[in-house]
């Protein structure tokens, strides 16, 4: 009955609607469907009718369910998953609280977070020079004090002054240009040029709060609906799957070949692209992670050229995740940026759209908490570039400390600078130690029953393959877990070591993996190895077929 009254009221309003008298005066999209702008003059309606409308509107929506419940959330939000911080991390946090409240309540004394590439959390020390510069920029008043000379290196003082001079008004507390401070972008472009041997334009650089917001921005720009697909490696860093889900697109998988050290075959790319097209999906971009996450492989130059050719031929944007470019451990491997590959093939700005992501969180510096990074975007029309800028501007700018750090990472101290020697010692110390840790863990994994592990040529992870016994798979099914998640939870409860199950990254069906960072401090690695080994042996004893 009331519904009927409501409908009648609606009809009455419709017939009484007077031409719009007030307008949302927006000079771009006055009639855009996203603006509910034309307003009928309800106030002129008889009071009785007005109250009817009000009661209709209340009736229509008011009920026992509040506006924000999990059922009424954006389904894209519900759909996306991010395994690196999923269930296992929640369990780890609970265990940690347990250990704090009741020391000795578990067979281990501390939780070792090997789930996430967060080096300083595990005790890696920051690069002194970078931090000196940041501290001085954060508190420029220090530069006026003579005591500062005794506390800071001379070149850090010089660098901080130089950077402050590049910031309008020397104001590190001000929003910057939405692409980032121009002077810092100049420095970064020079760094890219020095790295690649090909020119870089500061106007192509967008500084971001870590690399992730840049990836989100690209997905937002590219994905129009679920009919738009993005080619991603499997296994992949789940930022990509999560971001694609959040923006309502379709993840198009291409499989890396574990048997050839996680090789990326162009035939596989072609096959998956064709299959996606058959399903009516327009593939718009290809994600390449080099060095690989979680797989740790470093792409060979030849392979990179093939990928570039493929993207060019198929009209795909190449999204190059190059955040681990400094993390190379295999002496026979070298990092080549996709930009350098494109340019050395003779492809210029007009030939291929390419986005390269870099971060301050990785490398030898590992400054995750700073949320600094950039993307270099080349091969886009000015109109599209404007859209990038607009979206960046809605968030005003990325944090200044992170911006400064991004410029430092791309232009560290040089030979002859006061800090150079100390910097090199710190840098090489970290990289060499990471290489040793990678090797030790790789060997340890390979010595376990049913486990094989490719070498970490780069990045910060190992991704061993575990052939789980059927009994274990069955036990996992009973516990309603993926088999590798089951293994990882058991590992955590027994050893305090947190790893991420391979199912969070994607893997060939029926194969099982986990991702383990190589980041625990070196003195802890033997303990990690022995705990892992003990656990695995017991696990196999329990479940061996």
């Amino acid at each position, binding site marked *: 009955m009331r519904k009927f009254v409501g409908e009648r009221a609606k009809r009455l309003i419709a017939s009484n609607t007077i031409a719009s008298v*007030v*307008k949302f*005066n*927006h000079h771009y*999209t006055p009639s*855009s*469907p*996203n*603006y*509910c702008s034309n307003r*009928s003059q*309800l106030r002129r309606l008889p009071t009785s009718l007005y109250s009817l409308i*009000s009661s209709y*509107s209340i009736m*229509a*929506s*008011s009920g026992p369910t*509040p*506006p924000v419940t999990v059922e009424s*959330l*954006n389904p894209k*939000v519900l759909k*996306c998953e991010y395994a*690196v*911080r999923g269930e296992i991390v929640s369990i780890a946090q609970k265990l940690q609280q347990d250990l704090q409240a009741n020391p000795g309540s578990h067979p281990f004394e501390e939780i070792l977070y090997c789930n996430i590439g*967060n080096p300083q*959390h*595990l005790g*890696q020390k920051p690069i002194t020079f970078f931090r*000196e510069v940041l*501290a001085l920029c*954060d508190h420029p*008043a*220090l530069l006026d004090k003579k005591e500062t000379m*005794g*506390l800071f290196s001379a070149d850090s003082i010089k660098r901080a002054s130089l950077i402050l001079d590049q910031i309008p008004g020397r*104001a590190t*507390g001000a*929003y910057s*240009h939405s692409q980032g401070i121009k002077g810092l972008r100049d420095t970064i472009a020079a760094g890219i040029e020095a790295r690649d041997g090909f020119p870089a334009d500061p106007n192509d650089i967008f500084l971001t709060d870590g690399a992730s917001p840049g990836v*989100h921005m690209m997905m*937002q*720009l590219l994905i*129009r609906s679920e009919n738009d697909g993005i080619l991603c490696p499997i296994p992949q860093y789940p930022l990509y799957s999560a971001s694609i889900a959040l923006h309502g697109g379709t993840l198009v998988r291409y499989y890396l070949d574990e048997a050839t050290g996680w090789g990326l075959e162009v035939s596989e790319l072609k096959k998956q692209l064709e299959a996606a097209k058959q399903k009516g999906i327009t593939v718009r971009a290809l994600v390449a992670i080099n060095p690989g996450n979680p797989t740790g492989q470093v792409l060979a130059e030849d392979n990179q050229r093939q990928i570039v050719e493929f993207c060019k031929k198929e*009209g795909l*944007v190449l999204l190059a995740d190059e955040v681990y470019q400094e993390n190379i451990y295999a002496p026979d491997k070298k990092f080549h940026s996709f930009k350098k590959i494109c340019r050395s093939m003779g492809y210029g700005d007009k030939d291929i*759209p390419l986005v390269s992501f870099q971060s301050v969180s990785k490398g030898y510096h590992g400054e*995750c*908490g*700073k*949320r600094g990074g950039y993307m270099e975007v080349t091969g886009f*029309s000015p*109109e*599209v570039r404007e*859209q990038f800028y*607009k979206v960046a*501007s*809605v*968030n005003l700018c990325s*944090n200044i400390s992170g911006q400064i750090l991004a410029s430092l990472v791309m232009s560290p101290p040089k030979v002859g600078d006061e800090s150079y020697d100390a910097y090199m010692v710190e840098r090489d110390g970290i990289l060499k130690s990471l290489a040793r840790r990678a090797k030790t863990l790789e060997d340890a994994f390979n010595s376990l029953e049913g486990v094989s592990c490719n070498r970490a040529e780069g990045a910060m992870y190992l991704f061993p393959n575990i052939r789980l016994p059927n009994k274990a798979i069955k036990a996992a099914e009973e516990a309603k877990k993926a088999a590798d998640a089951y293994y990882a939870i058991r590992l955590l409860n027994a050893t305090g070591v947190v790893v991420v199950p391979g199912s969070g990254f994607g893997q060939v069906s029926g194969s099982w993996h986990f991702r383990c960072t190589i980041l625990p401090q070196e003195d802890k690695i033997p303990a990690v190895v022995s705990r892992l080994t003990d656990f695995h042996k017991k696990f196999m004893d329990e479940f061996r077929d």
Partner: protein
Amino acid sequence: MSRKALDYDQINENVKKAQYAVRGELYLRASELQKEGKKIIFTNVGNPHALGQKPLTFPRQVVALCQAPFLLDDPNVGLVFPADAIAKAKLYLSYTAGGLGAYSDSRGLPGIRKEVAEFIGRRDGYPSDPELIYLTDGASKGVMQILQTVIRGNGDGILVPVPQYPLYSAAISLFGGALVPYYLEETANWGLDINNLRQSVADARFKGITVRAMVIINPGNPTGQCLSVENLQQILRFCHQENLVLLGDEVYQQNVYQDERPFISSRKVLFDMGPPISKELQLISFHTVSKGFLGECGQRGGYFEMTNIPPQTVDEIYKVASISLSPNVPGQIFMGVMVSPPKPGDISYDRFIRESKGILESLRKRAHMMTDGFNSCKNVVCNFTEGAMYSFPQIKLPPKAIEAAKSAGKVPDVFYCLKLLEATGISTVPGSGFGQKEGVFHLRTTILPAEEDMPAIMASFKKFNDAFMDQYEDHRGYSRM
């Protein structure tokens, strides 16, 4: 393949639709002019440090020490840093295993969230739960995160005040939702009329839109008004009746320039109202380190607090936050210092009070200078800036000026603002970027230029405006009488 993936006609329509006028045409033109060597007064963005406001000493000392923790071991550190800054830095470093260089919990450092909860508890007189406080890279990120969670498609509407801060229209466009405007009443000092609100909701529902949330900006941006307790009660009751989640943008809570209507949080008003509403109404409020006396825009620090949001939803919001790993840690430290500043008796207390009071008192003076200045101009009327950082004068454009704008292919207020920029170097934002009633024109300026520069800026504005009006005046009436 003929089209490339990112050709203009191939990109997401929602992206193209989004508009963000604060950094739009005027700003770009101003930047060009600056490059050509013209002196530009940027009053387009609430960016105090860019206009010469000095950062407060204490927060900068604490963050510098956290950046360079090796200084804490240097016997000479006391020559440069006061003991309470050193103690504070040590405290904050104890909150995190990896210092400023490690990702924190995706919701922010638990220690800082506890300090925020204590601050909210002191402010409102009702305790707050740190588990329901998420730190963000500035308030904008938080707003975007929440809107993304709420908006399912173009059938979902968000009530937004008009004029509004274009973050809301831009974010709603990006996420493909529907903006449902409600108009603030300029003649009632930008007051919020509850009947007007009802009408907006009824209109939207009539069009098949499910209105899901209501945004209030208090103190107002760009309009500068402070909402009264009565008004807030009405809003809360309205949201309760209409089943809307209230998004309270309260980033200007420290920026209040009159004493009749001090800032009062939506949360306090809600809890004062008691059950059932206080237990049912869903509220999310936003705060930042970019505004207030801190004005630390470049740090990108902020938080949102959730009230009466079900745990499962809180978990979903956590999941989305975790995809971005963590908010920047230096920004989190700034938030910590903002909510737990030096206390009486601390070494830095006097200096901190002197600096922060100095800024707020000067802003109060500037608010008066600016509104008085505008009101002395021909065909300009301006409500007093009760709070926030902006003046939003109405410019009554003569018909000839409107015609001239049309033939130049510009919206009339854009035309006016461009002329103003070319003539004086004052970079403002046209009212059309915020939304306004048809045929009425405004511009937004911040009140942030240095106090000593203010008389000259207002004189220069008046000179331009009055000449502009003389040029286009034809005595046939104005854009609005």
